[in-house]
């Protein structure tokens, strides 16, 4: 039995087809990295297709090195796909990347902020890159800083922030431009349980504003709590795609973590 085909047939329910209600449409996206020798070549993403509806919170799960971040990096213009195409916010990433960048925002894995700027200055900096008006930046910064409890620390330089505070600032910076489509790449890594829960609530509130969110995470319970649908990526391929509830039912599992282990663990054991 070809397990990969079997998993794909059973577990991939792409939900919406390609239509105007979709915010993101990914078609046979591939990213291959060439090594110095042919055996060093890596198929980081190997023909992924899925679509994300407007206002949907879509989770990308997978073990380390599965291809989640590479997929996001292609969708936000950091990497050029080797093959395939993707429409983000109505624009092709291969042809209209500039337009795509005006609609999206990315919260990267690392706290990507300037350490010598204060929290507020970092927010203002990225607001200015999106050509926001000063008054709008200030209003939005106040809102976000208050919501995430970072207001009092906002005048301090970011280099003095704790790991958790940096992660929160990282998220605020990603939200300053009120993006229609938001990529959250492991946004709660390094946060303590209390702050993580608060951030989950916050991410949920963004979704309620009809924003499209793609979330990658290692915390399976995070995906289960937040995501409308999840895609499980392994070895650069999409091996499962459905709502957390449907995936649990299909795999007769108590929670999404069990589904994740069944799918990715089985593939590891069978050497695929």
């Amino acid at each position, binding site marked *: 039995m070809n397990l990969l085909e079997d998993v794909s047939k059973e577990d991939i329910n792409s939900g919406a087809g390609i239509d105007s209600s979709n915010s993101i449409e990914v078609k046979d996206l591939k990213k291959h990295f060439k090594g110095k020798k042919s055996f060093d070549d890596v198929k980081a993403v190997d023909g992924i297709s899925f679509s994300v509806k407007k206002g949907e919170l879509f989770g990308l799960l997978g073990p380390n090195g599965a291809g989640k971040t590479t997929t996001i990096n292609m969708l936000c213009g950091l990497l050029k796909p080797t093959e395939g195409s993707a429409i983000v916010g109505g624009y092709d990433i291969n042809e209209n990347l500039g337009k795509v960048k005006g609609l999206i925002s990315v919260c990267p894995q690392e706290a990507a902020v300037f*350490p010598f700027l204060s929290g507020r200055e970092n927010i203002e900096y990225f607001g200015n890159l999106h050509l926001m008006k000063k008054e709008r930046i200030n209003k939005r910064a106040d809102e976000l800083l208050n919501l995430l409890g970072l207001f009092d620390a906002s005048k301090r330089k970011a280099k003095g922030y704790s790991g958790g505070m940096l992660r929160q600032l990282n998220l605020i910076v990603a939200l300053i431009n009120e993006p229609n489509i938001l990529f959250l790449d492991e946004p709660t890594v390094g946060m303590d349980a209390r702050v993580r829960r608060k951030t989950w609530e916050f991410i949920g509130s963004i979704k309620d504003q009809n924003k499209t969110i793609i979330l990658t995470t290692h915390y399976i319970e995070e995906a289960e709590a937040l995501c409308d649908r999840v895609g499980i990526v392994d070895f650069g391929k999409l091996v499962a795609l459905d709502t957390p509830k449907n995936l649990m039912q299909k795999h007769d599992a108590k929670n999404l973590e069990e589904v994740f282990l069944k799918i990715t663990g089985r593939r590891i054991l069978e050497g695929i």
Partner: protein
Amino acid sequence: MKSQRILTVFKMEMKKLIRTPMYLFFSLFFVAMLVIILGFSLGNLHGWGPDAYGNPRSIFEHMVPGLFAYAGIMTIFTFASAITADRDHGVQRRMKTTPITSGEVIIGQMLSYTIIPIIQTAIILVTSLLMGFRPNISVLGILMIFVFMIFLSFCSVGLGLITATVAKDARAAGSLAFIFIVPQQLFGSFIYMGEATKVIGYFMPSQYVTEAIYRISYGPNLTDVFIWIDLLMIVVISAVIYVIGVKLYDR
């Protein structure tokens, strides 16, 4: 091209310089300190004889034109360290997901690296005048020194970009920068290496700046054709190195 974005990058670069003590020290104060030390120690010694125009000069005065260039060379270190630190923090990748274009980033950086050599030059000029530097110079001559220093700054930014391309992190960039700094320091700044090595100097961008500032400071006037040849050389070298730096770093 949006001026708001260019201005934002410019302001950030200036804040980076002012708020990072290491960059501030190496960009603005290190050479000024050197000027003070050399002024005190060599200001009354005349072992190198008169200048090329026959006027008596102390060893310190012979060195001053090269000290200006040395300050410009140090920009390689500060820029390479700073840009690699931005890369290490992931902010450069983040910026690439925003609508800012590489052209806007480049212009913003060039603006800040126009202001920095102006401040550098002003500090060194004042310090060296206080320590006994006595040039025969007009206001136009002083402006010309600023122009040379701005082009040397662009050249150093280009060399900083090349350094950052090969350096794995900010610390490595700081060390690697000296591959470009030391030869220019030895063969194209304030250190007198003798006539035999003079030809090597012509492969060093800083040599053209040192030579031109020497001619501007001690020569009769700005009609000296070699000043304009030096200007042409530093403009061409800066443009070539800057373009190579941007291309390599973008890759």
